[in-house]
């Protein structure tokens, strides 16, 4: 990157470090911070949406829909989350390929599962074997995002379902007394009020989501963990201009600090949001805000 990097052997310690930390592979490491942030940015709204859908389904008066909603909420409890991550990535991949197989090769007669293999016709492969590398990476990342959204959607559904039940019953009754229909009472009274009850749970989920992002590594995405292991391992002069010993401990220390900073910033931001949402609410927090001297 810098001009003086042409001959790393001659460099002073500090300059060597500057050159080392700006190699092409390190740039990939810095980009993977972007992957983590993109994952957070995409998954959070997706999971919230799925959670909202799940909670609405669980509250439904139609029994089958309510069962589906409750099962969805229950499903990720009692079982380690990481097992779901590893399950969904394979299962979703096979699900998509199976659908494409049915559509694209209707006259394929051989069974799809045989001798410990999952065989679909070549046109149904996802991504196609001729596709360039970046398509493979995007596909892997997309699978990971869907997996995260399904799992965190279930957590969020649990929180939102609880929050909807926490809104005082009198609020809905008043809405009904004013002649609102069930739908109107839900959207105009229940939904705006439930957020303050949902926020503590959702903040907790956001923290969990941040701390779950390194699991991308297990889903086969080249994320921070992948690069930290890759770049930290000992390098001999034969393969690189920047030979060094086993530095993985320092790379993972860096990751540890990165995540600590990320969670700390989120904590501060969420506290502010909570203070904003509590304003004027009929909760203990809102009461405390009202009583506090105007500063």
């Amino acid at each position: 990157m810098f001009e003086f990097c042409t001959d790393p052997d001659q460099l002073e310690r500090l300059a060597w470090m500057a050159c080392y930390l700006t190699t092409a592979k390190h740039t990939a490491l810095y980009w993977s911070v972007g992957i983590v942030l993109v994952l957070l940015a995409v998954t959070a709204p997706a999971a919230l949406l799925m959670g909202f859908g799940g909670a609405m389904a669980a509250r439904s008066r139609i029994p089958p829909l309510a069962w589906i909603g409750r099962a969805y909420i229950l499903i990720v409890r009692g079982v380690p989350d990481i097992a779901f991550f590893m399950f969904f990535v394979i299962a979703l991949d096979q699900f998509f390929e199976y659908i494409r197989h049915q559509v694209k090769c209707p006259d394929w007669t051989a069974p799809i599962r045989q001798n410990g293999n999952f065989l679909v016709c070549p046109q149904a492969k996802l991504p196609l074997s001729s596709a360039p590398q970046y398509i493979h990476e995007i596909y892997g990342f997309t699978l990971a995002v869907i997996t995260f959204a399904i799992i965190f959607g279930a957590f969020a559904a649990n929180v939102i379902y609880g929050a909807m039940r926490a809104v005082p019953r009198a609020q809905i009754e008043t809405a009904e007394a004013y002649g609102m229909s069930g739908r109107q009472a839900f959207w105009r009274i229940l939904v705006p009020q439930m957020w303050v009850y949902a926020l503590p749970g959702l903040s907790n989920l956001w923290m969990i989501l941040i701390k779950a992002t390194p699991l991308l590594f297990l889903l086969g995405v080249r994320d921070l963990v992948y690069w930290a292991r890759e770049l930290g391992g000992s390098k001999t002069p034969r393969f690189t201009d920047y030979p060094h010993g086993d530095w993985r401990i320092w790379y993972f220390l860096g990751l540890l600090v990165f995540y600590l900073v990320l969670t700390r910033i989120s904590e501060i931001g969420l506290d502010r949001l909570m203070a904003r949402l509590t304003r004027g609410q009929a909760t203990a927090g809102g009461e405390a805000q009202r009583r506090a001297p105007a500063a």
Partner: protein
Amino acid sequence: MSCWETFRAYALRSVFSDRHSWDFTLAGHDFSLTIGAEKLLPRADFDLCQQVVLIGSGMLWNIYFGVLTLAAGFLLATLVALARGSRNPLLRKPAEWFILVFRGSPLFIQFFFGYFCFLALKNAHPAFAPFTSAAIGAAVVLFLNTAAYSAEIFRGALLSVPRGDTEAADAYGLSGWPRFRRIVWPTMLRLAWPAYTNEAIFLFHSTTLVFFSGFPATSQRGDALYYASYFADKTFNPFIPYPILAGYFILLTLVIIGLFGVMNRRLNRHLPEGRRPRLRFRPAQVLR
């Protein structure tokens, strides 16, 4: 192979990767004792029985990590919670940092960092060699992690010990250690118990991370998730091993709830019937 033979061959596969035989004479009779398991994992023609037995065998690791670190973490958590509430900054500050670091960063990264730390220590001094194994090294990391999470729970409970209780203790002339042991600590436990049950359940769940985070599985001796993903990789069929794993964990979760429920009844036995809180499992997710 019949299912019973499979059980004999693989039930202890997560502990032994070989058979060990001992011949000995006891009271004039010759005995031969063989324990252990097949050296090689099944490689083809997987049947349901193999998957159930091997994943169950892996559960031994999850139970080992969970029980050991929960018990040890309980002690450290009590100390850290007390230090966190102390007025002395020399005690309070380190406790605050300990909780912040272990709760604010992913357990997955902690495992990696811990493993490479132990690796570096091993190079400095061979006495640290055992710590690079999952059995000890990962247990240390998990121990510190659960201690931090539990300390936060205990701290909250310590703050909500009713003032009347401590005032009554003062009135009876209790102070210092007796006051803590007989009044504060039991009340703290009683208040913290539902949240601590939750913590215990998710601690067992997070033991599945161990063998995917740097710590090597020697001779393919791994935990339940390790074997489940082995089968999923070999058969390309995730729909059998993962539900088996899920079944085992649901069972384990129920056992934990049962045991903690017994303890909960004991902690609340002085309260009049009807005011005793029942331990209802409403998990708040604690993925680390």
